[in-house]
């Protein structure tokens, strides 16, 4: 045991120096042929034949990319990247006028965040396939991603919180999503010396109402001692009213935490009874505190985000609600807190510990009854270690972090420093198998491994260090993930694949749960965007002072209007582009020369707006950026920009075809009108807004 650890430390140190040496030298020579880590023919186990589908959807957090990626398992194929907290020029998220409000915070527009963890919505402690929640660590936020549209539907800022790391874990029936502060700060935040941290800085555990789409709200915040709260997991079955948070820095150090927060032999797992808190708040034991935070929702029908400012938040102190929180001493700066499928065991990954401590929920209940306390921390009772501990896994490797379960009585713990997954048995606490990861695994994930019914077939290791696993790509390397077969007694490495950003945690669910519910297009008839183009008469161009609104339709293979004149330097042009297609997988793109933001990708039936402030006179091409059809290259137009004060009238030319498609798609108009429409021949003069008083009937509204 001792020897193994010593060796591990030496190996880790040696590899660091080696890498340092390489850094100043040259790129490592390419690896000779042959696999490292995989044994035998495993290809068939991850081969998903062309045209067939993966068994699981896996949702991998993107870490510093601020995004969430969808990967198919077992193939490891990247299916989609969903922008959540980060602007995404690829589809205009955070650039289009409709999506900008999603990134509003009390600090202003924050177009980036550090997306650490994922949490599928649960019913009865099992994934129900409705949503996945993700956290923003830096500017504390929690987002809800809809699993029918696979896009960000809602973002809530969390007040009084520094570093939303212990988030977004869900309770058994998604009653609440939690957020707890990694960095304690003064609550409410104020200007004060950092040296006065101890006793003045507070941690905050927030419970967010999450059971209804579009109505996320901070229900209440428990103000706790100023430790660093790290990760969490809600109870299940008998423990379903509780949620468990790891904490470290119980030293309350405010400087050189590396050393000063690693002094105590034991830190805490905080056991919080949320049912109890709920009733205390219900009895009026909380205090409403002034606050300033934002709630952003993407409207299902206008497809536009809106931001609501919130001015207060309900808070409650542990002293006002006896029995709501207890501390369980846990060795040494614990990281993950994971609850087994039965709800009885709480596994803490003590990242500097030499054992994996496992607490028992029933023992904890008994200890509370017996008042087996070992003092208190700022009034929060500390339970005796021996009174709650069920067992310790000996020799788990160096740096155990996170644990998932296979539903067959085994737990799998990721071990960072010795770079391996350790399989051990619940109840006997004996290690039964271990397998290397490449390299330094952070989280690991078993589909459903955090739920009451895991699918114990695969485990995914998400690693922090990549080094030589793929063709070298300069200094910055993609993070690596490995897929293991855990269906047998021995774990088996199946696949190694690069990922987007830095996946911290991930969740997976069986494809069959959501695959048939995927949205294919938005119904144009249900589009309630104020600038939607559902009918020919709605396309057109309109000036309101220095602002020019262009209501434009996009359909294979034309924009309407396609040529615009009369725009002036210094105008603000808003292109409201409606994709009037009603077919699957036919997005249209929109870009205009010199736009300082991004392009738009407009889904069928949807309206998106690009803001453009032309700075130079001249002709500016615009075009469709998403190859949509055989005549995609013809899907273009021009904007003529004249100097400010020019007398060029505002006009727009609309193609007959796109106007007709707009009418047909909206199903509007009488038969006579439809026949009249048919009479419109392309050889007639184009419809313009400048002079024709009847233009409104033919597809453009008069100039104002």
């Amino acid at each position: 045991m001792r020897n193994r650890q010593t060796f591990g430390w030496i190996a880790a140190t040696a590899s660091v120096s080696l890498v340092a040496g390489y850094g100043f030298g040259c790129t490592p020579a390419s690896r000779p042929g042959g696999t490292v880590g995989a044994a035998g023919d495993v290809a068939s186990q991850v081969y998903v034949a062309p045209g067939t589908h993966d068994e699981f959807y896996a949702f991998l957090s993107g870490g510093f990319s601020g995004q969430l990626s969808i990967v198919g398992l077992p193939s490891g194929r990247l299916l989609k990247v969903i922008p959540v907290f980060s602007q995404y020029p690829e589809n205009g998220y955070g650039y289009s006028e409709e999506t900008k409000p999603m990134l509003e915070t009390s600090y202003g527009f924050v177009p980036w965040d550090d997306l650490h963890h994922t949490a599928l919505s649960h019913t009865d402690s099992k994934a129900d396939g409705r949503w996945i929640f993700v956290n923003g660590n830096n500017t504390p936020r929690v987002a809800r991603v809809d699993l029918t549209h696979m896009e960000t539907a809602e973002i809530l800022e969390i007040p009084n919180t520094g570093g939303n790391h212990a988030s977004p874990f869900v309770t058994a029936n998604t009653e609440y999503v939690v957020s707890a502060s990694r960095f304690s700060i003064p609550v409410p935040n104020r200007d004060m010396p950092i040296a006065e941290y101890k006793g003045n800085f507070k941690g905050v555990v927030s419970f967010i109402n999450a059971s209804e789409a579009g109505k996320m709200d901070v229900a209440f915040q428990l103000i706790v001692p100023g430790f660093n709260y790290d990760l969490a997991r809600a109870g299940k079955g008998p423990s379903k009213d509780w949620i468990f948070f790891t904490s470290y820095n119980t030293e309350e150090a405010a400087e050189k935490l590396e050393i000063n927060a690693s002094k105590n032999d034991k830190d805490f797992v905080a056991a919080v009874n949320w049912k109890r808190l709920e009733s205390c708040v219900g009895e009026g034991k909380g205090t409403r505190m002034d606050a300033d935070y934002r709630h952003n929702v993407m409207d299902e029908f206008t497809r536009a985000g809106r931001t609501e400012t919130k001015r207060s938040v309900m808070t409650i102190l542990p002293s006002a609600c006896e029995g709501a929180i207890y501390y369980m001493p846990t060795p040494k700066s614990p990281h993950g807190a994971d609850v087994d499928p039965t709800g009885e065991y709480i596994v803490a990954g003590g990242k500097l510990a030499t054992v994996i401590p496992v607490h028992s929920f029933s023992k904890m209940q008994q200890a509370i009854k017996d008042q087996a306390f070992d003092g208190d921390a700022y009034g929060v009772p500390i339970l005796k270690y021996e009174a709650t501990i069920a067992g310790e896994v000996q020799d788990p490797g160096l740096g155990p972090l996170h644990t998932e379960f296979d539903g067959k009585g085994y737990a799998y713990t990721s071990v960072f420093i010795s770079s391996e997954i350790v399989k051990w048995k619940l109840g006997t606490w004996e290690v039964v198998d271990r397998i290397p990861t490449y390299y330094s695994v952070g989280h690991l994930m078993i589909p459903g491994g955090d739920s009451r019914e895991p699918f114990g077939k695969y485990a995914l290791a998400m690693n922090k260090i990549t080094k030589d696993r793929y063709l070298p790509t300069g200094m910055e390397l993609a993070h690596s993930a490995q897929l293991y077969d855990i269906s047998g007694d021995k774990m088996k490495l199946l696949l190694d694949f690069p990922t987007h950003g830095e996946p911290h945690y991930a969740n997976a669910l069986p494809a069959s749960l959501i695959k048939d519910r995927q949205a294919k297009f938005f119904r144009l008839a249900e589009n309630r965007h104020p600038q939607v183009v559902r009918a020919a008469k709605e396309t057109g161009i309109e000036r309101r002072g220095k602002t020019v609104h262009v209501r434009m339709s996009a359909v294979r293979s034309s924009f309407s209007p396609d040529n615009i004149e009369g725009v002036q330097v210094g105008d603000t042009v808003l292109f409201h582009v409606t994709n009037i297609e009603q077919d699957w997988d036919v997005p249209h793109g929109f870009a205009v020369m010199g736009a300082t933001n991004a392009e738009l990708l407009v889904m069928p039936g949807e309206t998106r707006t690009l803001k453009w402030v032309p700075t130079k006179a001249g002709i500016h091409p615009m075009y469709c950026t998403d190859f949509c059809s055989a005549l995609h290259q013809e899907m273009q137009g021009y904007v003529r920009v004249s100097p400010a004060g020019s007398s060029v009238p505002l006009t727009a030319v609309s193609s007959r075809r796109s106007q007709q498609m707009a009418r047909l798609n909206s199903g509007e108009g009488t038969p006579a009108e439809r026949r009249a429409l048919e009479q419109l021949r392309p050889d007639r003069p184009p419809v313009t807004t400048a002079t024709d008083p009847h233009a409104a009937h033919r597809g453009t509204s008069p100039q104002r």
Partner: protein
Amino acid sequence: MLSTSNRILLAAASLLLALAFVFPLWRIVLQAPQYPEGLGLEIHVNTVTGVKPQDLQNINGLNHYIGMKAIEPDTIPELRLMPLALGALLASGLLVALVGRRTLARLWVGVFLLGALAGVADFWYWQYDYGHNLDVENAPIKVPGMTYQPPLFGTKKLLNFTATSWPAIGGWAAFSALALAIVAVTRRNDSTGRAVPRATRPAPVGASLPVGPSRSLT
């Protein structure tokens, strides 16, 4: 007079026509590599719809590339006429079954037969018109000599699409009604068990065999 059983047969034939009001008469399905889920049209007694709600406009959208007119059910007069004609046929069929006179019944079946032929011919004509009467000048895709008439029965390749056309439940119901009605007016009235008239006697299996070779010899 028709026997009771034949009158019941006639009434049943008339009632079978009611299915044509509920179910589509004809279905044309289009398949192409980039449409793995297929696109399709259903011709109902009073309208044309997509097999999936959005199919019609998507077919119209695609058809503009070859200069085909948009299919707009409101502009097709037959779709206003057909429910009336079919309704009248159904009602009069019941009446004829009630009256039970053989000549009247034969007249009704004759009208039905002519109506059915006219309907199918008219459908073919619309297909011809959509497929041939193209706005070639403004069509982005022009393939010399190519026309786009879908088949009446069966399958045909139209550029990247494979078009398959067959009667649907409503159509099969109408054809079955016609067949039943013909049986009703041609079958012998009495129940002596003697041979039925030639017109409806099923040909014995293999009866045409001697004809085939002799024809090919001449």
